[in-house]
């Protein structure tokens, strides 16, 4: 018996790194499905044992190519099983996986590749390989590109491009011959090693690599699992970008902690179908996904027969009245409502959950942005246990969770066990916990800036605790400004309220140091387009549709409704939107107007459209603008329009007598 074997045996008890967790599951639930992928028409399934074997093969293959402790491994592509396994393979060798947004253009990737000194990249397909080749000259250290899908790769005869199959085959043979080598590597891995590096796109400046240790991420994952009693029986659909902390937590961290099954959809186009087939028990989506779903529900119901629509409307009213309360198990719901709800559950809610693919959901989470109360209430009222969580990449997406039965529509829940949260003097939310970043990669300055001497991480969000101890987030701390009259101005808060209307996709509010609040609006092409079609309004595209007077009127009504709500919002009552315009193009990450996570880059937008802001505040009735746009294939073009500025009705603020 060699010492290595001893080590391997003693490792059996260790659950402190992800590779150890994987080997653990292969041992205790070897036949349990670990990964599924819709491919070739069926859900191809790999058990934990198989996954562990594949991962070992990949790790050995990488090691043969020269991947070693401390190396960073770029992972680029849609949610493919082997890309998830690649993360663990890198970790087995003591390396760090760096998942990247697959829809980023080559130039954007170039920075991360350089910054993280990437020598190895595992990419999904030809498209990503082409991107790598495009920027290879800028990143001379990039020595190996491994691809998952061989389609179209026949004529790439560069020696540094290899198929993952080939590498894994090499690794498999190697592992069979000398299993000890890999076991030793795995054994050497410690919980304080960096487990993953996630780049935050950041609303300003260059992306920063957030380094998280195994211990931190496992802690975050474990807390979540315990909080919601997640077991190995869960099914999740892994469809969110792998580079996003949310997906990393759910599809990788928690899957490895709890040992449940992840399911990779066939392609981006089939997510909805795949969701319905799998029927996940645990589900995670940013608010916009829920929003799109609801929009689709409403659009599809528009075409339903009269009786069906009446039935739907009736039971939706019942659900709105008592659905959320019944889900929370609150007492005091009258029997008639309970009976009605049960009937509705049979006729509408149950089938609806089913067609949405959510009938098996035990817990669903949303995070990443504020979710509209109506939207949130809708899902809860039809019996889907949708909750909010609060966190960021730096805090492993695990700061506050809403406990079952204590759901408030406008808060993000209570701090989870082991996390300390306090509010700074300027309203900023500060967090200290085990599940936190170790630091920004090669950016000690940024690290020092965001983690203070007491070990608190400065989230950059402004918020406060309510009387029940629930955290409420209003806005980014740095975005919170003041109107000219000194009243508080929280643009996000206003924008979110606007975005809660199905017709409004994006909004940008201005008002800092100004005498009133004005806004840009992006309409929702799907919802407004459908609305226009039903009214026989012909249009040729987004720009045309946005310029229609009827559409302006539609948006105006939404804005005025928001104003009517804002007037009751105490310290934000002065933030009513006075003037707005409907933008001639959709804000787009390709044009740098949004981050990859689709957050508005406020500074960039106000610079780019300064002329429009001037028009809003100078009282002009319209403004001509020409804008360059970038198409998906990299070509550019021009969009020009004469934008009309709308005046919205505002409501007099009734100050409470102090």
């Amino acid at each position, binding site marked *: 018996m060699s010492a290595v074997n001893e080590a391997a045996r003693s490792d059996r008890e260790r659950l402190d790194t992800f590779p150890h967790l994987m080997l653990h599951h292969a041992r205790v639930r070897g036949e349990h499905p670990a990964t599924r992928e819709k491919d070739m*028409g069926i859900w191809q399934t790999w058990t934990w044992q198989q996954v562990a074997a594949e991962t070992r093969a990949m790790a050995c293959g990488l090691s043969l190519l020269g991947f070693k402790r401390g190396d960073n491994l770029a992972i680029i592509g849609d949610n493919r099983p082997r890309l998830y396994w690649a993360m663990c393979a890198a970790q087995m060798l003591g390396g760090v996986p760096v998942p990247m947004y697959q829809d980023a253009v080559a130039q954007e990737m170039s920075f991360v590749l350089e910054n993280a000194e990437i020598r190895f990249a595992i990419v999904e397909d030809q498209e990503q390989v082409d991107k790598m080749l495009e920027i290879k000259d800028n990143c001379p250290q990039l020595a190996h590109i491994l691809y998952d899908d061989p389609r*179209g790769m*026949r004529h790439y005869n560069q020696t540094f491009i290899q198929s993952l199959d080939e590498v894994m085959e090499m690794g498999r043979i190697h592992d069979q011959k000398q299993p000890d080598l890999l076991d030793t590597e795995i054994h050497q891995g410690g919980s304080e090693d960096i487990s993953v590096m996630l780049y935050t796109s950041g609303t300003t400046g260059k992306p920063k690599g957030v380094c998280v240790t195994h211990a931190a991420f496992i802690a975050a994952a474990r807390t979540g699992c315990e909080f919601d009693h997640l077991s190995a029986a869960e099914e999740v659909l892994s469809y969110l970008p792998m580079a996003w902390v949310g997906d990393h937590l759910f599809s990788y961290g928690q899957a490895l902690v709890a040992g449940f099954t992840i399911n990779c959809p066939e392609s981006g186009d*089939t997510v909805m179908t795949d969701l319905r087939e799998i029927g996940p028990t645990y589900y995670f989506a940013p608010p916009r996904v829920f929003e799109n779903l609801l929009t689709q529900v409403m659009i599809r119901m528009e075409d339903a027969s009269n009786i069906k629509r009446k039935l739907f409307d009736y039971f939706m009213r019942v659900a709105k009245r008592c659905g959320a309360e019944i889900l929370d198990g609150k007492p005091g719901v009258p029997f008639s409502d309970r009976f009605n709800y049960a009937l509705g559950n049979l006729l509408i809610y149950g089938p609806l959950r089913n067609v949405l693919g959510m009938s098996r959901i035990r817990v669903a989470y949303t995070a990443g942005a504020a979710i509209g109360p109506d939207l949130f209430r809708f899902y809860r009222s039809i019996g889907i246990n949708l909750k909010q969580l609060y966190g960021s990449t730096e805090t492993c997406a695990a700061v506050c969770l809403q406990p079952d039965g204590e759901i408030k529509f406008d808060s993000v829940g209570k701090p989870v066990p082991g996390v300390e949260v306090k509010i700074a003097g300027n309203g900023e939310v500060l967090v200290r916990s085990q599940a936190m970043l170790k630091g920004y990669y090669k950016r000690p300055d940024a690290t020092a800036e965001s983690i203070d001497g007491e070990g608190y991480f400065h989230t950059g969000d402004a918020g406060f605790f309510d009387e029940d101890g629930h955290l409420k987030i209003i806005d980014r701390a740095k975005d919170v400004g003041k109107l000219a009259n000194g009243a508080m101005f929280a643009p996000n808060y206003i924008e979110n309220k606007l975005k809660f209307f199905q017709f409004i996709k994006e909004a940008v509010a201005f008002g800092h140091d100004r005498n009133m609040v004005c806004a840009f609006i992006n309409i929702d092409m799907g919802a407004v387009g459908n609305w226009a079609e039903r009214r026989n309004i012909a249009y040729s595209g987004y720009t045309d549709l946005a310029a229609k007077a009827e559409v302006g009127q539609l948006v105006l009504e939404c804005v005025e409704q928001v104003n009517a709500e804002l007037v009751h919002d105490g310290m934000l009552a002065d933030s009513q939107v006075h003037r707005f315009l409907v933008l001639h193009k959709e804000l787009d990450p390709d044009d740098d107007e949004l981050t990859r996570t689709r957050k508005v880059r406020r500074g960039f937008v106000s610079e780019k459209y300064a002329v429009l802001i001037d028009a809003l505040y100078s009282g002009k009735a319209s403004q001509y603008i020409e804008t360059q746009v970038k198409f998906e294939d990299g070509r550019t073009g021009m969009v020009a329009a004469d934008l009309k500025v709308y005046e919205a009705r505002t409501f007099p603020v009734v100050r409470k007598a102090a």
Partner: protein
Amino acid sequence: MAQRQSGDVILDLQKISLHFGGVKALTDISFDVREHEIRAIIGPNGAGKSSMLNVINGVYHPQEGTIVFRGKPRHEMDTYQAAKAGIARTFQNIALFKGMSVLDNIMTGRNLKIRSNFLLDAIYWGPAQREEIEHRRKVEEIIDFLEIQHIRKTPVGRLPYGFQKRVELGRALAAEPSILLLDEPMAGMNVEEKQDMCRFILDVNDQFGTTIVLIEHDMGVVMDISDRVVVLDYGKKIGDGTPDEIRNNQDVINAYLGVAH
């Protein structure tokens, strides 16, 4: 474009003449097709292009001439023998089985490789099921290749035109043919669909090494993707050679390019 390596002559048509009653469709036409190449047949409407394909896979039986396929001379082909020998084709007017799904349509393409019979089929569990699954796997690869995963269970009648063409190509591919005859694969498509179809044709030729004989009206496409072109006019051959040679062939310019384009 990567230069393909063409191999030996796989199909040689010698002095083919075909007429229907008094109407002459093809007169004394000879040309050959080499392994792995993309061979285009062009010509104005009614030049006899489709008739030529029909002669190759035995739908029409020429009155005169010899067809040498893989070294074996025949006076005429017969459809079954042609299919068995690895000649597959698509049709000018889509000839899918309208009542079946995409999957089943492509499965029909594998019928020659299926050994099961109706008795085993009736019992199903056992050999028939094993075979179904085995061939399903192959068909799924084709579905994947042609990027039609999302419509695999849709009845073909409900599909838009472009997809129907793609499914028809899939059905032909399912037979793993050595020669693929494509009768106007891009007719009636928009630019994007044409690009896709071009890519598929090139990929088929490249990845599976399939020899391709195609009829196409879009000159740009033909000159782009084919290795050699044969030009027909009024049932007679008026040109044969590489795209460059054809472009500069005076007869062709006079008879065809000059007039029609």
